[in-house]
């Protein structure tokens, strides 16, 4: 698995776990907007993005805590990469 794939896989995992979605990881397709997958209510957005912050040790700005802003898997992965010091992106066991 490439570095980028691994990051996206972890984001998928966090999305499924934090929102208790009953779907398999590979059902979430690359490039698909989060809006297509779930209801974008403010509770869901906060729960998911707070879980992402915990998982990757990054912090989002107030105006970014919105799934309409963070959009989709590649956008979020890119933002996490740019914010993270690097150590958090190594595989967690």
């Amino acid at each position, binding site marked *: 698995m490439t570095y980028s794939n691994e990051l996206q896989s972890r984001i998928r995992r966090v999305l499924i776990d934090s929102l*208790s979605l*009953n779907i398999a990881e590979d059902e979430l397709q690359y490039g698909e907007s989060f809006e*297509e*997958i*779930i*209801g974008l*209510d403010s509770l869901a957005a*906060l729960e998911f993005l707070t879980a992402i*912050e915990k998982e990757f040790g990054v912090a989002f700005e*107030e105006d970014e805590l919105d799934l309409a802003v963070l959009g989709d898997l590649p956008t979020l992965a890119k933002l996490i990469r740019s914010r993270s010091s690097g150590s958090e992106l190594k595989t967690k066991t």
Partner: protein
Amino acid sequence: MITERLQFTATQNPEAVALIDGETSLRYGDLLERTEAFSRYLSDELGIRRGDVVGFFLPNCWQFVSAFFALAKLGAVCMPFNTHWRAAELRWHLARFPVSAVLTNQELRGPWDELNDVVVPERRIVVDDQECAERFCATPHVPIDRHENQAFDDEVALQLTTSGSTGRPRVTPRSQAAMLAGAANVGKAVGIRAGQRCLAVVPFYHSHGFSNSMFMPLLLGATVVLQKNFVPVSFARLVLEHKIDMLVVSPFILRMVADRNIDANTFAAVEVCLSSGAPTPRELAEMWHDRYGVRVRQLYGSSETGTISIEPADSPIRGGAVGVPVPSVDVKVIDEQGFNRSAGEVGDVVVRSPAMSLGYLGEPELNSQAFIDGYFRTGDLGRLDSDGTLTIVGRKKKTINFGGIKVDPHEIEGVIQKMPGVRQCRIQGVLDPHKSEIIRAVIEVGSERGYTRRDVVAHCREFLAEYKIPRIIELVDEIPMDVTGKVALAWEPS
């Protein structure tokens, strides 16, 4: 009556700050002036009279507060809508509960453009546009003691919307006298005093947000700091910056703040923390106590009754305990025949309160079932212990409590069943690993239809606010039912 009470508080503390909304800070004297100015605009230019209903599609903002008091001065009614509702939901609601005008703001006005046939543009007031800002502010100074008021004790002041389980939202009208009684009871129970600083982040379309974070603190001379949208970091910043000593929150807010690892000193000034909307898990309350030194007190109430009970500040943290009834509120636990249960026995929780609503608007049949001999049947199952502590153990009603907002399963079922090829659909509330209720849809579709989760989400989005879109979506060939007609497919949180 409400106006007189506010004037009384303002006369006592004219220089005290009543509201802080971002850069806007209003002293009690200012709030009265703006209220007076806006009530003149409402009556002289919009023709709003006693008994007229005005819809509010606004976040927690100073204009909301001022407009509410302006309507109370006229004996007119504030009916707040959930600001997440879409045009389809608003249309449905307005067809049953018409309004004379709607107040909204520039950010939220979108859905109203599709509702010109229901509320004409001239009756839609955008409170933060330039013209309206002048209405609020441009009236000559009127000394506080010269305001002319009418009593309006029995006039309805507020109509909150709540969800039942019949597919129809319900509206609960509350009179001015009931609202004042409710505020006095909670004020006594909690010991609120002038000069306290309360953060109002729970939306005002919710009974807990409206009554406990805004109406009651303002009548008692506190300062209310408004937050439009809950974001954990800015919530913490406001608490610190304004030395907030009273928090009015929900379990969701408590959990999100705890998850962000906010610095423990942030909450050093907090003396009162009232959590409502859903049960606060015991572990979460313990964590707040240990980490922030804050005793989270569960508050139990409803749109129908106002606040029912609050945990005392010095009581031990117990799961499910919702404290003791607030002054003047009578709580009974009864059996199927209506007789009182003994202490410690589980039964139906029924409530009588001077703060109670006048029943559900336009629902005589429902009222005869829900309000019996002056007591409201909450639909909750609970027990009263010998020390007077009320504990809720379950619920009879089928509404889903999503983050403190009641959701009607039948409304969602009705929407999903409109999808071609859907044979039937069952909606239920299930607990996630944080013990919060989330919405699960089990949908029976003919095998010729290749629906996916995305199709269901997209379909729901046309008709339903985001918070009503099911989190768990299961597409099945056949829904197995148990003998009571419930879905027999078990759900285990992951």
